[in-house]
Structures are given as C-alpha cells and as structure tokens.
C-alpha cells in the first residue's frame, strides 16, 4: 500500500505552498499579534493575578473563528479555480487520501502558528509557578478546535471556486458552533426553553467542549466531539467533490 507516502507527498507540497506565498507570514504575524493583544489587553493577563494562561485560551475560539477559515478557504476552491484538481485526482491517489493530506498540511500549519506562541508559556513560567499540565491541555484543546474549524473550512472550500465565499460560509458555520454554547446566548435561550433543550443545543457548541481543556481536563467525550466533527466534515468534503464530477 502506498497510502501514507502519497499522503505525505501531497501534505508536504501543500505545507510548502503556504510558505512560498507571503500569506503565511502575514497570517503568522497577525495571529501572534492578536493572541498577544487578546491575552494581555482584553484578557487582563496581569489583572487576573494568577499564574495561568486562562486569558490566552479563553480568546482562542474567537481568534480561530476568523483566522482558521482564512487558512482553509483556499484548500479546494483554489484547486478548482486553477484546474489543478484535475491534475491531482488523476494521479494515483484516491479522493479521501487527497482530502486527508491537504487537511493535515493545513492543520500542521496551524500547529506551527500555535507553537510560535511559546513566549507566553515562558513568560507565565518566569513570572509565577503555573500548572503546566493545564497549559498543555489548553494547547491540545486549541489544536483540536483549530482542526474542527479547519475541517469546516475544507468543506466550504469544496463547495465553491470562490475563496471569499468559502471564507464567509466557514465563518458563519464556525460562529454557529460557538454561539450555541456562548453564555449570553444560552442565558437568553433558557428564558423561553426548557433547560434540557438548552443543554442539548449547547452540547453542540465547541465552547462547551473546549472548556474542559482549559481546566486541564481531557474528557473522552470532548475528544470524541471534536474528532467526529472533523471526520464528518472531511467525509462531506469528499461527497461534495465527488458530486461535482458525477454530473
């Protein structure tokens, strides 16, 4: 079986493509600046007076809401616009291998972006004595969250040749996944809906499942949630790509 070498080749090309265009560097700078701004200014890192990265991770879903669709929007729409999808899929590779490969490459890019936030970890360790287990869990959660949003962006970019439309669609879907568990929204909902209904709706939110990671808890249910959204979105990406060609 040549599955993994092929996936590796596509992923390598894809990842290199990010760094061959200036967009990658712009993205990294914007991500690092914004995460810093959110952590220290909006998050009140110093005012909290505790040795933790709570303020850093709390803002992560909102930051990813804009930045991850920006990374994922080109995944398939670009291939379709340039016609390279025809080149790629007539090479000895199956559609799902190509989808997984491209997804993994973008995910790796986001992982690099996350890894580059290491100065906050150093800072908080230098200033105080934080629980680094919680910080690691926070990073794992952030990575899964990024993957979840990315898989949605992969799906929307398969729907259209237009990157802007792909971006907006992904943003809307990700926003929905955030809002159904966002405290102001759930509070509003609970005024005219039963509590079980509110809870059920909220259980579809990435916020609900991201919370555990922020507290340092790795719950299988949360892991399962993120992975099922990823698998579902990538599977649907395949269905969409196939339907374009099926006629």
């Amino acid at each position, binding site marked *: 079986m040549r599955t993994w070498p092929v996936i590796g*080749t596509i992923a390598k*090309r894809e990842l*290199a493509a990010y760094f061959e265009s200036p967009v990658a560097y712009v993205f990294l700078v914007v991500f690092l600046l914004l995460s810093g701004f959110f952590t220290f200014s909006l998050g009140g890192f110093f005012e909290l007076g505790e040795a933790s990265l709570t303020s850093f991770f709390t803002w992560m879903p909102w930051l990813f809401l804009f930045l991850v669709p920006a990374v994922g929007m080109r995944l398939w729409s670009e291939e379709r616009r*340039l016609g390279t999808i025809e080149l790629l899929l007539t090479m000895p590779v199956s559609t799902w291998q190509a989808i997984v490969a491209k997804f993994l490459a973008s995910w790796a890019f986001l992982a690099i972006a996350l890894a580059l936030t290491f100065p906050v970890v150093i800072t908080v360790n230098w200033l105080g004595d934080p629980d680094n287990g919680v910080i690691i869990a926070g990073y794992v959660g952030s990575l899964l969250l990024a993957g979840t949003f990315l898989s949605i962006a992969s799906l929307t970019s398969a729907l259209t040749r237009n990157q802007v439309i792909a971006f907006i669609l992904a943003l809307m879907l990700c926003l929905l996944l955030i809002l159904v568990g966002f405290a102001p929204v759930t509070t509003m909902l609970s005024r005219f809906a039963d509590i079980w209904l509110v809870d059920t709706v909220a259980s579809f939110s990435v916020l609900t499942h991201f919370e555990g990671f922020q507290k340092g808890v790795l719950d299988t249910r949360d892991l399962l949630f993120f992975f099922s959204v990823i698998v579902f979105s990538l599977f649907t990406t395949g269905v969409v790509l196939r339907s374009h060609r099926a*006629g």
Partner: protein
Amino acid sequence: MIKVENLSKTFGSKRAVDDVSFEVRKGEVLGFIGPNGSGKSTTMRMITGFYPPSAGKVSVCGFDVSENPIAAKEKIGYLPESAPSYQEMTVLSFLNFAAEMRGLRGDERRKAVRRVVETCHLDAVLGQTIDTLSKGFKHRTCLAQSIIHDPEVLVLDEPTDGLDPNQKHEVRTLIRRMGETKAIIFSTHILEEVEAMCSRAIIIDQGKVVANGTPDELKARSERAGAVLVTLHGTNVETVKERLSGIAALGHADVLQAQDGRVTVEAFPSADAGAEREALAGRIAEMAIRENWKIEQLKTEEGRLEEVFRSITMPDTDIIKGVA
C-alpha cells in the same frame, strides 16, 4: 491498452458523451477530433478517472478505471486541457512533486526529472516559479509532468494548444516518437496534426463517434477524393470539355481557370465508375497526349480531412461546393 465500451456521460439533462466505444493498442496514436464542446475532454476525463462515467466502462491496461482506479491511474500520463499546474511552485519542485506522486524516490526520481527536463527543454526555467513562465513553458511543464513516470498510456488534451509553430513541431515529433512504444490519445482541432501524427483518428460530434479510421480512410470519404486536377496547355475550354465527356469514368468536370490557351479542370469520377475511378488520371493523360496538349500538372486528389470533418459535423451546410 485503452478500451472504451459504450461510454456515456450526462450532466443534468445534457448528454455530453453518448455511447462511445473504441480501442487503442500499443504503438497506436489516436487523434480525437471534433468541434468545441463535442465531448472530447469529457471522454478523456472519464478515461483518466477524473469523471465517473454515467454508463459504460473504461479499462486501461486491463484495469477497470471505476473499479480499480489507482492501478489504472498509475499506468496513465495525463495532460489536462489548458495545462494546469501549481502556480507558486518552481518548475523543479513541481516535477519533483509529480515524480514522488508516481512513487519515484531518490535516484530514480532525479533520473526521471532529468529525463523529462531534457525532453521538454525546461533546463532554462527550472528555478523559476510557474506563474512567471510564458504559456509555452507552462504547457511544456505540464507535459513533462505527464511523462515523468514513462507511462504506457498517454492522454493528452490539446497538447499543442497555445504553442508557437516551432514548439508545435517539437511536441508533434515527441508524440510521434513516443507513439511507437505507448498507446496515445490526443485531442486537437488542428486537422493537419491528425494527418501528421495519428495512426488512427476518431471524429466525435455531439458526444457521438461519427467516424473512426486511419487518416487516409477518412480522407477517402471526402467528395473530392479521387478527383483529378489537370492543367493543359495549347487548347481551349470547349475542346477540353468535349473530349473529356468521351471518358467513361467521368462524372462531371469543373473548369477552374481558362486563359491564353491554358485550361485548368477538376474532373470528378462518376459515382458508378468502380475500378475505373483510379484510372481516371491515366485516361486524361492519354487523351492529352493524343490531342498533343501539354500537361502542366496532373494530380489525383487524396481528399481533404477538413472537408470530411466539416461535412460530417455540419451536414446541413453545403460547404464542400463552397470551398471548391
């Protein structure tokens, strides 16, 4: 090596390809001709496994493209229409990528890349990103990608599109050379290419195969095939016409030019001439000698592919007479 059986493809209510069957053997170059939108590219996309067929089947080197796509695709080299490639990559990294996708590693990969760079004359642009290249180079980069694994089957969708005359000549030579050991399908709407490169041609129109044969066979279907063009000196139109009418195999003759005792006539054999058809030129020559006319030129038309193509794909318009 390529076997296409009753292949159809529908998009919505539009039937893009309708019950197409043909076969290409090793050592054959099949030219695929047809008007724009006739289903050439769609057929090729089904052969290469990009489009799943709505009906029918394709097998490449014995592998069914729908049931065993990876094995089939490994055997195929494909140049899609408009030669797409990853714009931000350099030519070298793009070719390395294509080679790796074909399972070539290390030394094998380096050799393969060197070979196609030489074949397609890309050494001057290896380090350039593809979006900075001229159309000819972009095209050849994509062509290089399609032959990097030395495939047994080559599918080329308009391989000479957008190339200058020198480049066209080179690509044609290349295809003819590779055609000796591979099975090649290429599409074009330049008919002289079909005559220059193909061992067989298929004319496709509105998704259907309307003609299939060697270029010579197709040309013979032209109305002008077998017509004799003759220019005679030292006579006049009336005498020539009169004498010509004495030849049994003659159907009708058109006078193309007549001045200063110089007459050019195109003589068509009659429909029921049978074996006498081929003898028409000889009969005319005998007549000229008998009458002591000087023959300036005498030639039997092979027929023109262009004419066949037009009469098949535009049957309602009477172009054959119009061109003449």
